[in-house]
């Protein structure tokens, strides 16, 4: 209805923007609420609804099975249009992930990583790389993995050790990458590796295809959640690729990786949000049906207060996430901080929501027949990956305390 408003009204802690709401008289159209469609344009509501229908009909029924089998049903997604090829905004992507994650957090989270890799190639890659890869990645015929973390370089990613040495027109990569989502099963690996000096400025982003000699994988990791997608170490031993496989400029890799992560943080937070929304709805149904001491649980003030707190945290999370997505879209001066805040707040608040939902289910909540425990296991890792929530606090504090 008012797409320009949604794009422009970014509220941040920066006082310059805090009165923005007075500038836009029709602000009520932007109101975010417990209803995920509230505040969205007509088009976005349609996107949300379609994604939610897909999540309910095609993903939710298989969610437990994918968790158990430790494998997603990839065929499912090959026919689907991806965001990279659709020109959707950051907010559009966020609401899509929010909807899809209600069907399966783990699978949706992997799609968000794939999407981030496609975005990095699309945004920074040379024309020939874009031409080769974007159509295949956008249709999800080929899948991508993001490779930054190393066994010895986690939060301190700028200190990474994987090297890429020049040899004629080639680069020779050596080192290993840890916790790589999709590792071993995906087709394209975006490897952050050192092509120059120590520190972040000596890092480049290099595209390595599966099947390149010297590229191998570690064992499939066993995890608490995120089971529908494999996680493996990616090992590079004298792995030779053309220099033209560098995404962006030499030495730009760390910056590209961080830019990718900004969107990644909003998307991962959106996945937590979807899980929290679904858990809230499941709990409301459960409380109305389950009876103890002669009345439905919904009639107990304790349950009511718990639901009230869950719903309040949910709306707060949604506001922060959508605000951050809009900030990123608009290249707002505080976009990095706002994305970090959204990830920090929403992943924690949504984990608390789902945890409370599990408690409200009592013993049933602990059973694998009920979806709540899987949402809990799947979103726990969102407090750790895409930059731990501790790193989020470092980023936020650095911005607040910097000399003006």
């Amino acid at each position: 209805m008012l797409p320009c408003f949604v794009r422009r009204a970014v509220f941040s802690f920066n006082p310059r923007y805090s009165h923005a709401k007075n500038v836009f008289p029709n602000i009520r159209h932007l109101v975010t609420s417990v209803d995920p469609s509230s505040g969205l344009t007509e088009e976005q509501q349609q996107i949300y609804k379609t994604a939610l229908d897909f999540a309910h009909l095609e993903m939710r029924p298989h969610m437990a099975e994918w968790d158990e089998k430790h494998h997603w049903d990839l065929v499912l997604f090959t026919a689907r249009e991806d965001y990279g090829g659709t020109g959707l905004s950051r907010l559009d992507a966020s609401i899509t992930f929010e909807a899809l994650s209600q069907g399966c957090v783990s699978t949706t989270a992997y799609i968000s990583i794939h999407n981030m890799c496609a975005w990095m190639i699309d945004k920074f890659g040379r024309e020939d790389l874009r031409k080769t890869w974007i159509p295949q990645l956008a249709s999800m015929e080929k899948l991508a993995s993001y490779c930054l973390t190393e066994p010895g370089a986690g939060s301190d990613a700028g200190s990474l050790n994987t090297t890429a040495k020049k040899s004629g027109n080639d680069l020779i990569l050596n080192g290993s990458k840890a916790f790589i989502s999709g590792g071993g099963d995906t087709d394209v690996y975006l490897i952050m590796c050192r092509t120059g000096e120590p520190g972040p400025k000596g890092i480049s982003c290099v595209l390595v295809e599966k099947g390149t000699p010297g590229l191998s994988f570690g064992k499939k990791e066993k995890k608490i959640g995120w089971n529908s997608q494999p996680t493996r170490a990616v090992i590079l031993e004298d792995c030779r690729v053309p220099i033209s496989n560098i995404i962006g400029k030499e030495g730009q890799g760390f910056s590209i990786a961080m830019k990718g992560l900004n969107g990644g943080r909003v998307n991962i937070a959106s996945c937590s949000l979807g899980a929290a929304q679904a858990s809230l709805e499941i709990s409301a149904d459960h409380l109305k049906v389950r009876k103890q001491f002669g009345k439905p649980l919904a009639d107990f003030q304790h349950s009511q207060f718990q639901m009230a707190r869950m719903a309040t945290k949910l709306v707060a999370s949604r506001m922060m996430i959508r605000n951050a997505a809009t900030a990123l879209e608009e290249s707002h001066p505080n976009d990095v901080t706002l994305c970090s805040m959204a990830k920090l707040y929403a992943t924690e608040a949504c984990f608390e929501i789902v945890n409370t939902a599990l408690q409200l289910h009592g013993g049933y909540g602990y059973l694998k027949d009920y979806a709540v425990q899987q949402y809990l296991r799947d979103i726990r890792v969102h407090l750790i990956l895409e930059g731990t929530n501790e790193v989020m606090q470092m980023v936020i504090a650095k911005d607040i305390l910097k000399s003006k």
Partner: protein
Amino acid sequence: MSLRILVGVKRVIDYAVKIRVKPDKSGVITEGVKHSMNPFDEIAIEEAVRMKEKKIAKEIVAFSCGPAQCQETLRTALAMGADRGIHVEVAGPQFDTLQPLHISKMLAQLAKDEQIDLIIVGKQAIDDDCNQTAQMTAALLDWPQATSASKIEAKDGSLQVVREIDGGLETIKVKLPTVVSADLRLNEPRYATLPNIMKAKKKPIKKLTPKDLGVDVSPRIEVVTVEEPPVRLAGAKVENVDMMVEKLKALGHA
């Protein structure tokens, strides 16, 4: 063939929502309740889109009658592949007493105004379960009808339609122009793709009133009371088959 197809799409309470009756028994609660396109109408749209993809049809017009929110339903139809929409706005008490006959009259008039060759509607809406619109539209236009279709094939100026009837399938041939109603097994509707959702925004929706179509929708009936179906009562256990038969006989079931 290059048909112009008119498809009726109704906005109904979503199939997954638990229906609740208003405390004053004047109707069911619709406020704040999720609404969607009637599932049978989704099948109707899908069939029209497939016919267009097979070059049997050249244009698909989606029609919906009801409050302003019907435009969302029309957008869904447009995102699935309809070319343009027509919204006949009816709200408030008039909408509450709207009957299939009113919709049929509108469809019939639109069919004339828009030079329509084929009307496809869902066989029934999941809210009132009337299953009347297709039949009455055909009667008003004096067109043949093929209801409860589970397969449609275009054959030299006519349609061969497989109908789901009690106890089996019936294949009939109808001359165009005609009215078809879609049954559950006709097809499986697609998910609108994201680019098509974006494109749907730019497709036109014409707004009309019942008066524009010469249809009088003033209420002729009054809803006296709406009640929930009786709650299923607890059963009783019987010792053996004989006792069960005896019980059933006593209750008049056998």
